[in-house]
């Protein structure tokens, strides 16, 4: 039986923002800490620490997960996308551009989670209604913006033609 003894590491290989990564991690290492402390990707953040607020959201095989309550070793063999992989200063993702344009960013702590969740939504439903976006964001809290501009930004990236982004 496959087993990782206590205080031992196991080797994981996964694709991170399009690039292959190999790491040794202990079973108890949370994905959020692996990303932030081992891989220096600080975009995913720890807030509520209990899967409610979405600040720690990353995409695993395109689906949002709460990295704060997800074992790092579970990404072995999978594709992980963090906000750093969404777009760069030179080439912003349309959602990142829209958030800036619409004033949907204030303190920024929820932003990475919002962006990745919106990306997952639009990949599945390219033309959601306002109500659908608000519903999909049930697990993404923001304390600064009052949500209005975040919703506007996401809707501005919805495409009537059903084009995937």
């Amino acid at each position, binding site marked *: 039986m496959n087993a990782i003894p206590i205080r031992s590491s196991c080797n994981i290989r996964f694709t991170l923002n399009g690039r292959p990564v190999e790491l040794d991690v202990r079973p108890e290492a949370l994905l959020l800490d692996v990303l932030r402390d081992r891989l220096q*990707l*600080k975009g995913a953040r720890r807030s509520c620490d209990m899967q*409610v607020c979405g600040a720690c959201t990353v995409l695993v095989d395109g689906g949002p997960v709460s990295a704060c309550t997800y074992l790092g070793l579970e990404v072995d063999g999978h594709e992980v996308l963090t906000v750093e992989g969404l777009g760069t200063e030179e080439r912003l993702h349309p959602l990142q551009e829209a958030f800036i344009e619409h004033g949907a*960013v204030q303190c920024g*702590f929820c932003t990475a989670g919002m962006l990745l969740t919106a990306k997952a939504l639009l990949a599945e439903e390219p033309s959601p209604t306002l109500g659908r976006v608000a*519903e999909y964001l049930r697990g993404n809290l923001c*304390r600064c913006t009052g949500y209005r501009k*975040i919703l506007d930004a996401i809707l501005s990236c919805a495409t009537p033609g059903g084009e995937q982004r």
Partner: protein
Amino acid sequence: MSARGRFTVVGQSVRRTDALEKVTGRARYLSDLELPGMAHARLLRSPFAHARIVRLEVERARALPGVYAVLAAPDFTWCDAFYGPALRDRPLLATDVVRYEGEPVVAVAAADEATAVEALDLVEVEYEEITAVTTLEEALAPGAPLVHTGEPLAGHFSDLATLKSKPGTNICHQFDYTRGDVKAAFAGAALTLEDTYTFPRIQHYSMEPHGAAASWDDEGGLTVWASTQNPFSVRSELGKMFNLPASRIRIAVPLLGGGFGGKTYAKLEPLAAALARVARRPVRLLASVEDAFRTVRRCSARVTLRLGFQADGGLLAVDCVADFDVGAYADIAPRVIQKGTYTTTGPYRVANVLLHSNAVYTNTTPGGAFRGFGVPQIVWAVESMMDVAAHRLDRDPVDLRRQNLLAHGEEFAPGDTPVDGKLEEGLSRLAEAIQWSQAPPAGRARGLAVMMKASVAPSVSEAIVRLHADGSASVLCSTVEMGQGARTVMAQIAAEVLAIPLARVMVVPPDTSITPYDQTSSSSRSTTMVGRAVQEAAEDVVDQLRRIAARQLGVTTRGLAVVEGAVVGGDSRVSYPDLLDFHFGMRGGELIGRGVVAPGRTAAPLGGSTPFWEVAMGGAEISVDEETGAISVEAYASVSDVGRCINPQQCAAQDEGAVMQGIGHSLYEEMVYEGGQLLNADLAGYRVPRAADVPLRFDSQFVENGDGAGPFGAKGIGEGGLVPVSPAIGNALTRLTGVRLHELPLTPERVWRALRAQRESKEAPKGDGRHV
């Protein structure tokens, strides 16, 4: 300002200067900070609301490999282990007594989180519970157990030098204000109303919890990185505690993931510094969200208000007694009770006023500053009762308010700043925005509320602008960026005055060793006060540029203006780099400008005249699901008198956020204690607004008459939008159902209970404002 006399970048919704880093994940907050050799800190917190510490053993924890320091109160022989901006009543770690559930008792610094957690597991603490007082009733009862015995020293704020406790009780400060003859006025009033309203304990829930990192250098100097809204206050506190001159303490502030007042005044910084000293290495102490619930909250309150009206609706007299529950340690609550109570009369003209408020200790999380600063608690009562009065006088609520509004330029209180806005205009725009004159759709009703708040005074803000040899500029000011967009606004102001592109202006992050003094990033004051300091500093540079150009061109400064990075006059145009080259005789050097905004003490009741009045009004249209009691806010309009929006989009963004936070405490949020234990110290049990709670129609408007004391006629914004929300919703609820609630939040169950009581009572015609 451009030669053409209109603004080039001020008044534009330019993109935030920090937007790029925030959307790409590159933004750095305290929890991202890593220092070489840094230790990780954790705190052991009291499980009891009130208890004696009878035994404390830390030796096993100290002996654990990888542990660098384990601290408890007896260890602080080498520093002054008490702090607090108003009363220095707060020990670094609980001494012989713990005063609230969650109070830190032991602090550990270790090589990593896991070791720190393990070390805390090895600490042994034995408590002996004492009777706790966890409500105002309990804390104010005669003979109540005292949360604090002994007299703490006064903290570091001048307006609180006259702290007035009531010895032998849990009242740590009292505020009194009176004018006119309240007794005679009530005797002659045609209508007197009296009622009591309560406001709950609310948690800020900044998405980034508190955090601080500290490091001592070899010469005994201290550097602290802190998620704080007022680095200079923290510096002052640490200076006193560790007996260091201000010049040897450096507080550096990264971006904050929210503040809302919860990050004002020392929180984790003293502990981080103490741990770093003993551990002899840098230490980072991060709070979790659960820790934040046990760090600070909004002061809850019980407000008993008496209003006296003339028959024609003139507001004759206001008598207010407010008890604020400030938790186990005073923090800045003494000022909260003052500021909040001082503007009880809000935007109204009232000749006869009697105000008294108490800051009351209880064995709960300390209450401190929170967006609104005592005003939401009072306005919930006042604006609810204005509607009750309107009903009793058979007057339209908008009309009754309009009648009593202070006029532009009218005095609020002797010695204080006259009203700097056109309140009537705001009220009219609000009424229109919520379609007050038209009947609402069936099953809906509207309510509104207005508020006026003073900003902190006296206060000081200084700024430096450095114009570099290449014509770009750095702005040095200590405004903290916590999401409100202050850094962008300061850049806009400097760019406007210097007439250079926004992209060539850099606002240096706050750092007390580099950026000059600013009292605080709170009180809606940064655009007005720091903005003006930046404006003055930039004008100072422009003045120097013009004088240099005058010399270079052999003309007088008259007729010389700055345009697009150059000084122009007549046919001549000299770029800034060329001017500096001329001035210094080489390609180097810089011009430094300075701005100081320090209105000083005045005869105003609070010791300083408010630099501006923050005026905001809100209207809500609601429906109620009577079977469940659930209120839906179908539409909300907010009107704020801001003088000038330096960045309109940012103003709207702040206002929308403020309103949603207001909807939070109006409908959902409440810290629930049971016998001293906090039952909902996490996001599963503490319900904050979500995206689906945003009203379908949501309108933010600004009155811009350029009549503020800030740059380009600006005033403050940020807190006002939150304040009217609860009475606007409460008033709408009464107009819709006839019930009036006196406590918040208006949860479905509370509304359901009130509706049931109404049904069961025999004599309750709709709309009589009958209270429950």
